[in-house]
């Protein structure tokens, strides 16, 4: 049986269908989750998609953090359930304190849409184990508020613990230390700004590298199941 990956829809989520497509194309079973429903319906992993939840009022992700489903996601994450946040989803994870740091206005002050080259810095997370070490991948990056910031001490700890998961090869937004994605201590919760779900078909994306991210979690889950 294929693993069930929940995709949360917040008011203003845009990439929920696309995330579901990515899950499906990678061989998983997408399950729609609703922001106002505390139930996560027996999913094995959760994908928080991109978009403009609540219109990005105040700060991106600031309001979505208070949704019913996030309480459950937080609890499940603490138990080791894999959780991925992409773009707005990453912002929600930071606002929810599931990941350290924050995402602020791009240094050049504009929304910019450009394919980003990234290096996979660690394969020891639930969402990157299927990549070759130091693999270079291309995913669309498109955001106005994607500059990753944190205290120097936090950054040092992230580096030291191998929790910087993706690094930009051409930093598009001024992120500190070129960070594009980070993980929590256990490696089950990962956030990244560029969009794996928009790089799953050669026809529509700049690459199909995004499939590797979903493939990783499916591998991680089946490993867990067989253990």
């Amino acid at each position, binding site marked *: 049986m294929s693993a069930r990956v929940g995709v949360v829809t917040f*008011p203003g989520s845009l990439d929920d269908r696309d995330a579901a497509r990515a899950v499906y194309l990678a061989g998983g079973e997408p399950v729609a989750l609703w922001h106002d429903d505390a139930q996560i319906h027996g999913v094995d992993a959760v994908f928080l998609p991109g978009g*403009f939840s609540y219109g990005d009022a105040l700060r991106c992700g600031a309001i979505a953090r208070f949704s019913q489903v996030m309480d459950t996601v937080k609890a499940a994450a603490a138990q080791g359930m894999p959780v991925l946040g992409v773009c707005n989803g990453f912002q929600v994870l930071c606002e929810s304190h599931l990941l350290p740091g924050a995402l602020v206005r791009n240094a050049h002050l504009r929304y910019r849409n450009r394919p980003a080259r990234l290096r996979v810095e660690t394969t020891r997370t639930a969402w990157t184990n299927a990549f070759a070490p130091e693999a270079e991948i291309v995913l669309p990056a498109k955001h106005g508020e994607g500059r990753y910031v944190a205290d120097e001490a936090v950054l040092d700890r992230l580096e030291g613990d191998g929790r910087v998961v993706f690094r930009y090869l051409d930093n598009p937004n001024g992120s500190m230390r070129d960070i594009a994605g980070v993980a929590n201590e256990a490696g089950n919760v990962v956030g990244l700004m560029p969009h794996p779900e928009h790089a799953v078909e050669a026809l529509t994306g700049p690459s199909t590298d995004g499939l590797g991210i979903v493939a990783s979690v499916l591998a991680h889950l089946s490993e867990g199941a067989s253990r």
Partner: protein
Amino acid sequence: MTSYVPVDTVGVASATPDEKQPWAELGLKDDEYQRIREILGRRPTQSELAMYSIMWSEHCSYKSSKVHLRQFGQKNPRTPRLLAGIGENAGVVAIDENIAVTFKVESHNHPSYVEPKQGAATGVGGIIRDIIAMGARPIAVMDSLRFGAIDHPDTARVLPGVVDGIGHYGNCVGLPNIGGETYFDPCYQGNPLVNALSVGVMPRSRLQSMQASGTGNVVILLGAKTGRDGIGGVSVLASATFSESGEDDARPSVQVGDPFTEKLLIEVCLELFDAQLVVGVQDLGGAGLTCALSETAAAGDGGMHVDLELVPLRAKGMEPHDILASESQERMLLIVDPAKAEEVLARAHRWGLLATAIGTVTDTGRLVVDFHGQTVVDVPPKSLADEGPVYNRPLAEPNDLGLIAVDRAETLPRPATDEEIRQTVLDMAASPNLCDKSWITEQYDSSVFGNTVLGTPHDAGVVRLDERTGVGIAISLDGNGRFARLDPYHGAQLALAEAYRNVAVTGATPIAVSDCLNFGSPEDPHVMWQFERAVTGIADGCQKLGIPVTGGNVSFYNQTGREAIHPTPVIGVLGVIEDVARRIPLGLGRTGDTIALIGT
């Protein structure tokens, strides 16, 4: 305590026939005002006057363009693909047995000059709601832009604002921007053009109607609260009591777009359509409730009764004519079976969207609007929506046409040496109209939805409609004001041909046209001549190409003082491609491929 200023009711209007009314300030002509009095058999109330002035404006009534636009209907080739045509919110064409597509291009020129960001943003929002009103899910947007000289200081205000507005709205509502155009010419300095196109897809069975039919059906207002947005036009009706209060609130104000609410509108409307909970639907555009109420009532077979005090308001002290004229964005009007009204409200609530029953469909044949129990409007709805004035304005060929035609390409100096040719190529590559536009296009999301097969920098945008069959569409949006200035008939046809070719080179078959006609003042016979020529050119061209014009938009009064812009018809052509995997991208292919030049 509910306090409101005393209003001008139908009773008051009948009792005070000689009351002076600011009809001229509202843009009505003497004979138009007299006709309103004849229709009503009394003087109009303030609210009625506001409604007639709005519905009979050039913008809503097409009073100067109507006689010419008829050509489209007359010359359009018959095609079984056309499911809804001119007169609907947007044209609808069949793609295959199951799927239909609707698309339309519309202008938001003047608001974008006053407040570039919000003007452009609300232009995108408005065209998206037209698409929703047909029953479709919007799936992409495009934008055609004209600015003044690139080095003029005001261009530095207008251009970044417009791009920010289009980008912010489109990105936030979640629609890929799949192409457009950007040109600079001093004639647009005081009057930039912002034309936005949206396209949507639907199962053919989901096509919606704007009819308010079925006596007893409930009229529901969905979406944002109503504020003082864009009521500038009717501010002359502000009662003395109110203006005396000296609040700056009384000032007419700019509409601000809220793409987040628009996104919710899309999701709620589609859910309601799919559940078959809606009898009729109309978007609230520039003319707000006035237009939506009168058009839905006129399209139906009966009448409508509305209790205006039920409309949720954002500002204090709004009078009935303010509420009727407000251009607050992100609102839709729904006609719903009373047995299903509860469910409609509940579904809107689930998405966090406001929905309020404000009236009912009646069999009186009248549109009646009450405000706190007092009747402020009682009119035949067709007199507002369908029976506005129609003008056959004088036409005259511009005097300078011969003069500018003398200045021919053949007489220009030509580069002769290698160095001169090199320099010419460099100059052209660096010229604002040919240079790379990625500063603009990078501010737009192009891949949300995961169906964009071709976007910028390709000649046309190509979007997949169905993942199983691979069927898709291609769209291009083109115009050339300089050609049209020289010869509006052929200039318009060149724009049509360019868009047609751009669609064809992707591998798609062109099937339909939407147009946005940007011109100066229709009261100027020279402009009117340009307009007539351009419309005839498009109608003839479409006839020859065998594709129908399915809808569009006319924008007059694009001028600074007495100086009109170049006549600028912007043409959108839509094509169908059976399998998007077989699209042909831009570029030179592989080493060894043969290069051929075809055509003349």
